[in-house]
């Protein structure tokens, strides 16, 4: 009896502690952000980094090769800080590519996988152990942890795609009349209880640019920026956004550029 009383007293103190922090921050929603903060400190997404690292150095695919010669823009095999500068223009493909499409280019060219197969599996089903692409994208981005997002526009195609991304951010269509801006154009907004990032502010764009790939609590899996865009488009009632599509790269270049200066910390943690 005394024991259980002590336990409930402790539980009560713990509740009070959480409540105290929540009320100190002023608004009722912040009770939720305290919960998220607690989960973030023990982010299960960390487990995917080692898996991605193993996949990166392992000899795989029809060509039995590792990804060590993959060039993410800093030279073959140079991963430090590479993700911080993506998307960028690559002369060998003559395209602006984000981290994920560049990774696919290497998996096709170096390892001999087919593009179609990779795209089919890139986004894993919720509750699964995740895809190779998701783990690799996290590992490669994690090699920029602690560095600042620094997307620069130099090549003409980078300027063109950046402006297209901005245009697309505000392009309304479909039966909900939504563009990105309807949900992400103002501060302190929520869809039901879910906080929306204010992406037309510097701080909001920085959050976007520095927290993907992220562990998605509701899916028990690491998700990438390609997934995030695909899922938004689904909610907007538009047709399926292709993995690695031009629209996705334009939006990512626009947002990451606006988020320059943010310190990369992946895996992020999302509800």
């Amino acid at each position: 009896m005394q024991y259980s009383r002590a336990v409930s007293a402790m539980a009560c103190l713990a509740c009070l502690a959480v409540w105290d922090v929540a009320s100190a921050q002023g608004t009722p929603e912040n009770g939720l952000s305290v919960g998220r903060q607690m989960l973030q400190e023990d982010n299960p997404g960390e487990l995917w980094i080692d898996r991605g690292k193993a996949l990166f150095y392992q000899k795989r695919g029809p060509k039995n090769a590792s990804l060590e010669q993959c060039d993410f823009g800093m030279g073959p095999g140079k991963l430090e800080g590479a993700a911080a500068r993506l998307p960028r223009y690559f002369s060998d493909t003559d395209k602006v590519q984000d981290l994920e499409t560049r990774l696919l280019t290497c998996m096709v060219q170096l390892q001999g996988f087919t593009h179609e197969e990779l795209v089919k599996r890139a986004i894993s089903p919720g509750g699964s152990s995740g895809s190779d692409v998701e783990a690799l994208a996290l590992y490669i981005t994690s090699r920029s942890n602690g560095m600042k997002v620094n997307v620069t526009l130099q090549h003409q195609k980078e300027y063109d795609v950046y402006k297209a991304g901005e245009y697309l951010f505000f392009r309304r269509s479909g039966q909900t009349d939504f563009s990105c801006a309807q949900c992400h154009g103002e501060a302190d907004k929520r869809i039901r209880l879910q906080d929306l990032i204010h992406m037309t502010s510097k701080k909001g764009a920085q959050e976007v640019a520095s927290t993907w790939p992220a562990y998605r609590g509701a899916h028990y899996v690491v998700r990438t920026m390609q997934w995030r865009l695909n899922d938004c488009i689904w909610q907007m009632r538009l047709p399926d956004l292709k993995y690695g599509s031009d629209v996705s790269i334009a939006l990512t270049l626009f947002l990451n550029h606006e988020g320059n200066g943010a310190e990369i910390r992946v895996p992020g943690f999302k509800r």
Partner: protein
Amino acid sequence: MNGNGLNWMVLASAALVATGCATYPDPDTTRNLAEKMVGNSFSASPVHAKRLVQDRSQKICSKIGGAKLTREEAAEVVRLARASIKYPQDGRLVGDWKRGDQLAHNGAGDRIRRGKLEKRKENGALCQNCHALAPREINVGNVGPSLTGYGLQRGNSEAVARLTYERIYNAWAYTPCSNMPRLGATGHLTPEQITHMVAFLLDPASPINKK
């Protein structure tokens, strides 16, 4: 947005010096490229691909950086919106608030995943996503204004019912280019469903109007 414009000009001229030629494209080039991207970035049946095509009002309402509408543009959006509104065949604008309550809390219907349309008996009205509803209801969004006490504040006269119906059918008839979807005009909701939403907002027995 003015500050940004200035930054771009500074950046653009710096880039000109640095690379000789690369710089920001003009708006027509940007539009052409972006629209080409829309054309190649989605896998969609011809029917679903129509959702990507902007109507005249959507084009006007897609200003970069949320720039202000001109007076003429605002007038055109309002005119198109007014012309779009259809009324239920029996003319009754106030339906069943209980059905409206269910619809207000339903955010599903008509989404597309891997080419398959999410077909329900009917589309949800999506209200809960963006609007506060009954008093003390916590799981509600705040993108749109609170609807708590909507009928208490306005009464339930025929004029109020008509205005409410029209605002749900096509919000842009009163607030051109607002964030609110044109739920009736785009076909997301039927006129009958909208009468239930009107009842949910106006009926004194509805949870919206309880203290």
